[in-house]
C-alpha cells in the first residue's frame, strides 16, 4: 500500500483527539489569567493573576485542596489493599472463572459515575441495606451515618475506582511465573514473607500504574463526592464543578482546572521517577 495510507487512516481520529480534546487545554491556561466583567459571562480585557491570588488567599479552597489530597490518598491505599489479593487470584486463575471475574470488574467502569452512586445512597442511607442489616442482627439500634460524611465518600470512591487498580495489577501479575509462591514456600518462606519479598516487589510497576490512575480519578471526581457527601464534603472536583456549572465563573473554574492539571502532572512525573528508580535497583540487584 502507498505510504500515505497510514496518514489517511489516522487523520480522522487524531484530528478529533487533537482539536476537540487537546486544544481546549491550551484555552484553560489563557482563561485562568482572565476575569469576567461584572454581571457578565464575557471576559474582561487584560491578563491578571487575580484568580490565582484568590485561590491562595481563600482558605476554603486550600481546605478543599488538602481534603481532596487526603481523600485521594486514602482511596488509593484502600483500593490497593482490597485489590492486590484479588488481582493475584485473577492473574493465577484460568478459563471461564478468570474471564467472568474480569468482565465483572469492567462493569463499574462502563456504568458511569452516577448509577453506582444512586445504589450507594440506598446501600448506606439511614434506612439502607447496611443499617437495615445491622438493626436486624441487633448490632445497633440507631442508624450509622454514612451519607454526608467523609467515610461515605471514601467508600463510594473505592467502589468506583477499584477496577482502575485491579486491571493494571492483573496485567503485571499475569507476567509472573504462576508458581513463584510455591517455589518460595517450598524453600521454607511463610506466605506473608512470600507476599512481602516476592510478589509485592514484582507487582510494583502495576501498583504504580494503578495508584496513578486511582489517585487522579479520585482527585478529579465530583459526582461521587457530591451525591454521597450530600453537598457537605467540598472537594476540588465539586468546587470546580460548582464554579463552572452553577456560579458560572469560568475564568476561576479554569484556574482550578489548571491547578488540578499541575497537581496530576506532578504525580505522574513523581511516579515515573519512582518507577525508573525501581527498575534501576532491580537491574543492580
Amino acid at each position, binding site marked *: 500500500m502507498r505510504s500515505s495510507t497510514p496518514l489517511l487512516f*489516522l487523520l480522522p481520529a487524531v484530528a478529533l483527539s487533537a482539536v476537540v480534546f487537546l486544544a*481546549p487545554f491550551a484555552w484553560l491556561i489563557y482563561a485562568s489569567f482572565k476575569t469576567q466583567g461584572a454581571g457578565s459571562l464575557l471576559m474582561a480585557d487584560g491578563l491578571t493573576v487575580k484568580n490565582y491570588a484568590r485561590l491562595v488567599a481563600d482558605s476554603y479552597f486550600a481546605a478543599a485542596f488538602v481534603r481532596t489530597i487526603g481523600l485521594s490518598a486514602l482511596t488509593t491505599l484502600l483500593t490497593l489493599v482490597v485489590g492486590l489479593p484479588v488481582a493475584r487470584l485473577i492473574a493465577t486463575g484460568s478459563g471461564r472463572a478468570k*474471564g467472568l471475574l474480569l468482565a465483572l470488574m469492567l462493569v463499574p467502569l462502563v456504568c458511569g459515575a452516577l448509577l453506582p*452512586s*444512586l445504589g450507594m445512597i440506598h446501600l448506606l442511607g439511614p434506612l439502607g441495606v447496611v443499617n437495615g442489616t445491622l438493626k436486624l442482627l441487633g448490632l445497633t439500634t440507631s442508624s450509622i451515618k454514612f451519607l454526608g460524611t467523609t467515610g461515605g465518600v471514601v467508600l463510594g470512591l473505592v467502589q468506583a475506582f477499584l477496577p482502575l487498580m485491579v486491571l493494571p495489577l492483573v496485567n503485571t501479575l499475569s507476567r509472573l511465573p504462576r508458581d513463584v509462591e510455591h517455589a518460595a514456600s517450598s524453600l521454607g518462606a511463610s506466605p506473608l514473607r512470600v507476599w512481602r519479598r516476592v510478589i509485592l516487589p514484582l507487582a510494583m510497576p502495576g501498583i504504580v500504574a494503578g495508584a496513578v490512575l486511582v489517585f487522579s480519578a479520585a482527585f*478529579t471526581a465530583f459526582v461521587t463526592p457530591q451525591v454521597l457527601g450530600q453537598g457537605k464534603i467540598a472537594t476540588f472536583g465539586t468546587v470546580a464543578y460548582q464554579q*463552572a456549572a452553577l456560579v458560572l465563573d469560568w475564568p476561576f473554574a479554569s484556574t482550578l482546572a489548571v491547578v488540578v492539571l499541575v497537581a496530576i502532572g506532578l504525580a505522574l512525573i513523581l511516579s515515573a521517577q519512582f518507577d525508573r528508580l525501581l527498575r534501576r535497583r532491580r537491574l543492580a540487584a
Partner: protein
Amino acid sequence: MKRLSPGRALQLLWTALAYLFLLAPILVLILASFDPSKFFRFPPRSLSLVWYEGALASGEYRSALTASAIIALLAGIISITTGSLAAFALVRFDFPGKRLIEAVLLAPLVLPLIVWAIALLQIYAVLGMSGTLLGLVLAHAVITVPYTVRIMVSTFERIDPSLEAAASSLGAPPLAVARRIVLPLAIPGLVTSAAFSLLISFNDVIVSSLIAGARWITFPVRLFSQLRSEGVDPITLAIGATIIAVILLAAIIGEYTLKWSRHL
C-alpha cells in the same frame, strides 16, 4: 482434587468480599427498584413493578433517554469508524511519531475529563455550539475513541497479516481485502468497541453535565440535577436498574462469546 490451603482459602474469601463490595451498589439499586414505597427501606415490606410501570408511562424520562440514545448512537458510529481505522494504521504500518500519535489517541483515558469539560464549555460558548447536538456528539466521540483504539489494536494484532498479503498477491484489490478478509475477522472487536462506546457515552455524566444545554438533556444529566436538588424519584431507580441489568448481561454475554477481557 487439590486440597485448599489456608492461604488460598483466605484469598478466595477476600476476593468474594471484594466483589460483593464492588457489585453491592448495583445489586441494591436493582432491589430498591422493586420496593413500592416512596422511600426504599431495607428489608422492603413488599415488592412490586409499580416504578417500572411508572417509567414506561413517563414522557419526561422518555425524552431524556431518547436524547441519551441518539447521542450514544451518533458518537458510537464516529468512535468505531475513526478509532478502528487509526488502530489498523497503528498495527500494520511503521511510521515516525507512532508513539506520540498513540499517546494523543489514548489521552482521554488518562487526562481528567472534568478539567477538559471546563475548557470545552468555554470554547463551545465562543463557537456558539453550547448545548447543541453536534457539540455533545463530538465530545462523546472523543471520550469513546480511546476505547475503540485499544480494543481494535488488540484485535488487529491477532489477525495474521499474511492472510492479507496472500489475498493481495492473488490479485485482490485493497478494498476487497478489507471487505472479505479483514472485516469478517475484525467483527468481534468491532462489536466489543461498539458496546463499550455506546455504554460509556450513554452513561456519561461528567462531561455532559457541564456541556449539556436545555435542549439536549441526557438521562444521567437529568438524574444528577435531580439528586442535587429534589432527591431520589423511585422511577429513576427502575430505569437505572434496567440500564444496570443490560450492562451486566452485556458483560457476561460479551465475555462468554467474544472474550471481552482479552481485549484489555
